[in-house]
């Protein structure tokens, strides 16, 4: 790699130092043409105009949430499977009693629409980085399902794109705030004292896929499903969107997903880093321990907190605090509006504030997942320079920071 790539840390520092890390960015509040700031149902011409990209399992749920939110006018569906695409279009048209919803195979055509304020993305993970960045370039605010990236480099670039274009970009794990109260509350209240460590229990990482070729359904655009991933023949199990990470779904295979490590990691690690208040940080080190046939990881944070993964003898989200020692309570961050993570995103579109699951925080979580995958894959401990976004003293690990995308796709 050239010297130029060695200097990227300064750019990250620059983004922080110059205010480009804030969403409002010193400009007056940017209200999209469609947004209103009251609680009444706005007229269609004054709603946040939205479209959805990737409308299978998670995308379908997200679409329903946004479609049924009175602040939203839903105008476009993008999906590479014809049957799903038609179903979603009909759902939108049925909601409004017209035929106005446009259906797209190529997300770039949807992003080119000037009337769309925001998109939600729930494609397979290997698409997220490209689609977040392209949406930001097109001036859209973005809600992207977790995990928000497939590589470490994508993490840096999606944050830069969001800041460069002043976009509200929310990650998609609703569980981070909603599912881990039992551990978040005593940590933030100070009840557990200064926190030393937290453990997360997690399943497997993804693996290679070499399924045989099958006939591709006539209404599926297989090239667009693969997108930047290595070419492979169609197989229904390769692209199935079910939630298994153990085979028979794209979540199982490393070209498209990190497996449980990123799929549940975005939730469990997101919740853990929130609970022990390191969500604004990235680890400096990941230590791999091998004990017999057991392998477990320890992520060291610069403030001394340790996040362990599958540590023997520890349970899910078990916290090692120091009860009795003083720790000042802190106010727990909340969504900007009632109605869950989607409502938080919509409210932030209006106010231009950072959403609860701001993309930088989401990237910090998925970075932990990627570091863990790389440590497991290489079978060794690694040191991570978060400022430079590089491994320290391990050129081989640095090769895993990114992967070449299949033409014509690039970041």
């Amino acid at each position, binding site marked *: *790699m*050239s*010297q*130029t*790539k060695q*200097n990227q840390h*300064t*750019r990250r*520092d*620059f*983004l922080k*130092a*110059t*205010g*480009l890390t804030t969403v409002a*960015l*010193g*400009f007056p509040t*940017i209200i999209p043409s469609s947004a209103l700031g009251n609680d009444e149902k706005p007229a269609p011409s004054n709603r946040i105009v939205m479209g959805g990209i990737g409308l299978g399992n998670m995308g379908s749920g997200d679409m329903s949430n946004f479609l049924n939110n009175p602040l939203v006018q839903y105008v476009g569906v993008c999906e590479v499977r014809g049957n799903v695409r038609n179903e979603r279009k009909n759902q939108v048209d049925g909601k409004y009693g017209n035929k106005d919803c446009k259906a797209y195979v190529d997300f770039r055509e949807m992003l080119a629409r000037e009337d769309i304020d925001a998109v939600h993305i729930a494609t397979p993970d290997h698409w997220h980085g490209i689609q977040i960045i392209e949406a930001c*370039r*097109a*001036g859209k605010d973005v809600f992207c399902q977790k995990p928000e990236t497939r590589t470490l*480099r994508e993490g840096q670039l999606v944050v*830069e794109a969001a800041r*460069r*274009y*002043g976009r509200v970009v929310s990650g998609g794990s609703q569980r981070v705030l909603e599912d881990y109260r039992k551990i978040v509350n005593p940590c933030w209240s100070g009840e557990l004292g200064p926190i030393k460590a937290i453990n997360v229990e997690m399943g497997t990482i993804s*693996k*290679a*896929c*070499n*399924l*045989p*070729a099958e006939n591709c359904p006539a209404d599926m655009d297989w090239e667009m499903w693969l997108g930047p991933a*290595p*070419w*492979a*023949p169609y197989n229904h199990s390769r692209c199935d969107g079910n939630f298994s990470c153990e085979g028979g779904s794209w979540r199982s295979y490393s070209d498209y997903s990190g497996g449980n490590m990123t799929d549940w990691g975005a939730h469990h690690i997101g919740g853990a880093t929130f609970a022990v208040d390191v969500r604004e940080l990235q680890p400096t080190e990941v230590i791999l321990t091998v004990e017999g046939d057991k392998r477990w990881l320890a992520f060291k944070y610069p403030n001394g907190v340790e996040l362990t993964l599958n540590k023997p003898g520890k349970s899910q989200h078990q916290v090692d605090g120091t009860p009795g020692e003083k720790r000042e309570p802190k106010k727990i961050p909340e969504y900007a509006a009632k109605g869950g993570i989607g409502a938080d995103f919509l409210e932030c579109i209006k106010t231009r504030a950072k959403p609860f699951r701001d993309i930088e925080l989401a990237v910090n979580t998925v970075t932990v997942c990627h570091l863990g995958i790389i440590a497991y*894959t*290489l*079978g*060794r401990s690694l040191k991570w320079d978060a400022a430079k976004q590089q491994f320290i003293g391990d*050129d*081989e690990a640095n*090769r*895993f920071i*990114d*992967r*070449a*995308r*299949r*033409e*014509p796709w*690039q*970041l």
Partner: protein
Amino acid sequence: MTENLAKALEALKTYDWGTDPNLLMPIDDAIVATHTDAAARKELESGLIAVLKTEVPQAAKDAVCRALRTIGTAAAVPALAPLLADEKLSHMARYALERIPGPEAGQALRDALPKVPAKLKIGMISSLGVRGEAAALAALTPLLADSDPGVAAAAAHAVGDIASQDAAKALLMAKPAAGTMAAIADASLNCAEHLLAAGNKNAAKITYEKVLASTPSKVVKDAATRGLQACTK
């Protein structure tokens, strides 16, 4: 070479779509095991390179390229370079070459650039950008005005990724077609951020001003304005 590894390399000869990928696990195991054993690592790389030079299924060559992405050296470049012009294998050749350090891999990508069709060219350009190949700037600059909008946009982003003062100048001087203006603007903003981070406020300011003056896009104008404000801090 262990017996299992030898078997895995042998399995590559008939490794096609649908073959059990576990047959290749010894290659992954060897990558981990040879990390601190230079001689064994060289032997592994040589074994993989040898497979690339034979007639084996596409799935096998893909698997080899994945392994070379992790352990490939300059020694692997001559075997990977011919694959760049092969429509079925070009991406996986880049999958390895993009991540192999050293000038040889970059040179192979630069050499392939004028010889491949537009679609594959976009891949070469992208990989050169990701590698931050400053030596490719002379080859990339004319492509900013390429008649193929995909090639021109890819060139813009690659030049933006190189992000040197010369790269910024190339973007400033570019006369893009209408369809490439957004990519040029994004690349220019990227470049300006690099320049500002390096303390070169003047060059960054010039770039931001050019973007502000040339773009019809409000979101890009806003981005350039924020950049200009940053230059005054």
